[in-house]
């Protein structure tokens, strides 16, 4: 078993395959894996050469063998994988090994596709493609699975899960970092380490992209973060191009010398990638074999990650933004009920802009499918923010679904000291990885004293250990009880915080604002308690970053405690703030709302509207000021005196005013009039949605209720939604000739199932003729045309009258 030797003695991988095959006559664009069948002897011989050069592990010739990348009519994928394993095993039997044991690693490379939402590959489809190959490789007798050259953490996660769930083989993983220590999709070293350790791979490291020397800084970072055996497989230097041909120029001796250095620093498995040959491997094994392994120190870092970055606890306090949560928030509840995902995403983006480090995500509401919404919100948030997320739910199904599709190592909120809770949550953490919040309450409730809360924390940590979950992956929430009913509440919490940090050595979180429940002026209490909590060891506060008082406490605490070097963050936030605010409000009074909107001055429009709403009815402001301003800009756009960016700046400005008026309407109990619904979607296969988004902003401005279904939307889903919402108008966009086909199909289905519904279309490749051909009712050559058409469709409505008045 390779696992008996892993991390105890130095092991050697083989070197490059592609370069050798090209020398044997592999054509550009030809699938190297077909050679397993067409030129079996060549493949077997390359393996033999590597084994005789000293490789202990050989990689099968299956790098691109997955259903998404490998399309060949002459041979089946199963056959390719099966023969690949046989060739490696045959080579091991043929080669002179001097009695060394040789392991066959099933080589798994990327699919060559990007996952949703940035690309069009479903996470589960990627998973299935990997799973198929892995089952096949395991059946054929592979000794381990080596997932390599991965440049996207999301695809990597699909591959590792597939390996774990479809086979019982050891899993090795290497990713491709650039010189800045980043993956192509943005992840840094700790983010990759966090993800892979969470998924419990057996060894991890780096391959391809760089030569041995350039890999050193990245390798050193891996050493700093991981507690697992490290694999290093460089290219024979940085790729160089002459006349369009790639070549590598680090010679075997030089390669071997650097690899020796890498081993002495702590690598456990070494080999080569592109451009390396049996000669490179021979030189390397000759000068490295028998070197003792440097023991890997257990790292005690509490770390969460997203696709693009990691957040490590310690060094000051972290902010976990609490805004994505319906509790006590009417507007958020409404967004959830109306499936207004954009609203939720904006809450995420704004919290990031305000300084949050991690975002809590809670979408629990009776009457909604929490699992489905949780998955959708997590997926969408991942495409607009690189902050790690905290999955917050009491529903085990929703928790597992979110953990599965989460791109990184998440926070999880939460487990408690109740046996039932631990029985449910810990197996999930064991499987998917993550940092879980342990609430110090159990079957008997929330203990009154600090000692008792620490005891519950201790119980949680002990139980987690049974699942192999380490202390560093648990953070404790000692719970804040409101001082309005628990006079000693704050004191107990602060004491418990201190004890947990000092006695148990784990990090802490706290939902800070509970402390003031039932009291007036809550921010006063909250922000002061927040400072006290940080002083007593609060590693991360779950707070509202919109609250200026809380942020003041945060910045002041870090400046005061020398956790903000040279008070840099404090200064950049608070220098010059007061004068800016004054400027904005003083200039506002002299301008009319119409001018502010026409010029696209958001701040001014906001202040003017706030003033106006005190004196005038919201509907009058809309009809007399907002709509005329928008019409003026819209006409200018038509006449070619106003251009798209200006049109949109005005639209965004008007939106700010509308928001104030809507609030005011809601407060006075008046219902806004019932709005006309329009569905917008970018058709199936199309991932370019900027045009649709432009139309959306304008339609919303003109008072339509836009149901935005997003991009790459199947005809069936659009039809179903149109039927369900009984809409009269659907707007479709497509960018390419290849996707207009889906547009045509969507129209066909709409005609059949929702006969009364009008369809307007737009997009770069369309024109009137094309639109007629696919049976659309209207072709919008620009965004304003779509607005005018929508108004015609709903003619007779108040809105149209308003516009004409």
């Amino acid at each position, binding site marked *: 078993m390779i696992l008996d030797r892993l991390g105890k003695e130095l092991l050697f991988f083989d070197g490059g395959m592609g370069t050798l095959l090209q020398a044997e006559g592999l054509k550009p664009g*030809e699938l190297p894996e077909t050679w397993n069948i067409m030129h079996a002897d060549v493949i077997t011989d390359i393996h033999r050469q590597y084994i005789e050069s000293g490789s202990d592990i050989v990689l099968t010739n299956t790098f691109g063998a997955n259903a998404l990348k490998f399309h060949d009519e002459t041979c089946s994928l199963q056959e390719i994988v099966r023969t690949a394993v046989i060739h490696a095993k045959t080579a091991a039997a043929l080669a002179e090994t001097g009695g060394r044991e040789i392991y066959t690693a099933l080589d798994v490379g990327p699919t*060559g596709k990007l996952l949703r939402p940035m690309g*069009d590959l479903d996470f589960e489809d990627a998973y299935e493609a990997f799973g198929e190959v892995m089952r096949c490789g395991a059946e054929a007798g592979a000794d381990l699975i080596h997932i390599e050259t991965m440049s996207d953490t999301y695809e990597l996660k699909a591959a590792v899960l597939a390996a774990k769930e479809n086979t019982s083989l050891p899993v090795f993983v290497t990713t491709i970092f650039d010189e800045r220590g980043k993956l192509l999709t943005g992840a840094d070293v700790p983010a990759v380490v966090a993800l892979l350790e969470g998924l419990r791979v057996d060894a991890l490291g780096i391959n391809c992209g760089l030569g041995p020397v350039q890999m050193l800084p990245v390798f050193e970072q891996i050493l700093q973060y991981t507690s697992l055996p490290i694999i290093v497989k460089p290219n024979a230097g940085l790729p160089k191009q002459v*006349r369009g041909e790639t070549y590598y120029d680090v010679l075997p001796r030089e390669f071997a010398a650097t690899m020796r250095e890498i081993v002495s620093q702590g690598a456990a498995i070494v080999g080569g990638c592109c451009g390396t040959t049996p000669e490179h491997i021979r030189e390397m094994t000759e000068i490295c074999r028998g070197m003792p392994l440097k023991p890997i120190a257990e790292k005690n870092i509490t770390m969460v990650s997203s696709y693009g970055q990691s957040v490590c606890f310690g060094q000051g306090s972290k902010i976990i933004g609490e805004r994505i949560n319906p509790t006590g928030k009417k507007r958020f509840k409404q967004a959830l009920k109306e499936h207004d995902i954009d609203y939720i995403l904006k809450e995420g983006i704004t919290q990031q802009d305000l300084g949050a480090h991690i975002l809590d995500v809670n979408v629990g509401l009776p009457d909604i499918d929490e699992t489905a919404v949780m998955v959708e919100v997590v997926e969408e948030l991942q495409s607009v923010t690189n902050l790690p997320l905290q999955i917050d739910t009491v529903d085990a199904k929703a928790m597992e679904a979110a953990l599965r599709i989460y791109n990184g190592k998440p926070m999880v909120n939460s487990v408690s000291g109740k046996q039932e809770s631990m029985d449910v949550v810990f197996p999930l953490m064991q499987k998917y990885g993550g940092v879980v919040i342990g609430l110090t309450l159990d079957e008997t409730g929330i203990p009154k004293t600090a000692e008792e809360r620490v005891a519950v924390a201790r119980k949680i940590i002990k139980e987690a250990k049974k699942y192999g979950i380490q202390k560093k992956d648990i953070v404790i929430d000692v719970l804040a009880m409101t001082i309005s009913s628990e006079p000693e509440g704050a004191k107990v919490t602060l004491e418990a915080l201190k004890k947990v940090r000092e006695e148990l050595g784990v990090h802490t979180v706290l939902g800070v604002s509970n402390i003031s429940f039932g009291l007036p002026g809550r921010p006063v209490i909250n922000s002061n308690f927040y400072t006290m909590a940080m002083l007593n060891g609060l590693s991360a506060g779950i707070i509202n970053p919109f609250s200026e008082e809380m942020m003041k406490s945060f910045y002041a605490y870090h400046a005061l405690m020398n956790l903000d070097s040279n008070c840099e963050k404090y200064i950049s936030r608070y220098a010059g703030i007061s004068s800016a605010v004054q400027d904005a409000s003083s200039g506002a009074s002299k301008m009319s709302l119409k001018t502010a909107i026409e010029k696209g001055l958001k701040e001014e429009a906001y202040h003017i509207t706030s003033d106006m709403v005190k004196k005038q009815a919201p509907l009058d402001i809309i009809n007399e000021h907002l709509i005329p301003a928008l019409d003026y800009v819209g006409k200018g756009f038509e006449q070619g005196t106003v*251009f798209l960016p200006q049109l949109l700046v005005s639209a965004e400005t008007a939106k700010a005013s509308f928001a104030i008026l809507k609030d005011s309407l809601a407060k006075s109990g008046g219902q806004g009039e019932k709005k006309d619904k329009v569905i917008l979607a970018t058709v199936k*296969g199309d*991932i370019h*949605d900027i045009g649709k988004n*432009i139309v959306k902003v304008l339609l919303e401005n003109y008072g339509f209720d836009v149901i935005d279904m997003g991009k790459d939307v199947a005809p069936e889903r659009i039809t179903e939604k149109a039927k369900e919402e009984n809409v009269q108008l659907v707007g479709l966009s497509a960018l390419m000739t*290849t996707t207009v086909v889906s547009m045509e199909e969507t129209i066909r289905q709409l005609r059949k199932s929702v006969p009364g519904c009008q369809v307007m279309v737009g997009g770069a490749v369309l024109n009137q003729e094309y639109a007629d051909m696919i049976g659309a009712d209207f072709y919008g050559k620009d965004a304003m045309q779509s607005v005018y058409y929508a108004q015609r469709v709903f003619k007779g409505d108040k809105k149209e009258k308003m516009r004409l008045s």
Partner: protein
Amino acid sequence: MDTMTKEAIRYLGYGKHAVDDHTLALISDSFLNLGTAAGRKFIYRIFDLKQMADDKILIETAEIYSKNLRKNLKGCNKIVLFGATLGIGVDRLIRRASLTDMAKAVVLQACAAAMLEEYCDECQDNIGRELKPQGLYLRPRFSPGYGDFDIQYQAVLMQMLDCAKKIGLTMTDSFMMSPTKSVTAVIGASAAKEKCHIKGCESCSKEDCAYRRDTI
């Protein structure tokens, strides 16, 4: 005003009109953001080119049928396959802006397109310099989707260049590139120096296009 800014303004539909200060500020802001978000990468390979009868050209084993491309490549005996991308960070940046500020999103989109073109030009200049000592001169870039050069050939180009692994450029099932701000193209190389080195826009047959460079 630099070329990239001018091109961005053209993509935004300003034509000959002067651009307003607010938009100009958005543009310079966008280029700053893009500078941070972009992870520019490119790849190229050079092949022998065989021009057959019936508008067929042959690059190694790959067969391509296109009248327009054949015209573009007339007299060439070498062909450069080319791929370039601004990286996925740009897509994320634009997506984020679409939620918070649509005007910014539209400007970012135009600036990214201008940045990509400029980057491709830079790459092409470098390739051209490299080939000059061999007495080879480059033609204008020609991409799948231009004229009758079918978009489906994008798959062939990307496979021959190994774009996904080398520069992180992938394609959806409907031949859209992801990252979206990416280019694949072929560039002919011939021993004779072509007199006019027209860039893509002017050579397009859609003469009523609102964004066309030579009529605005």
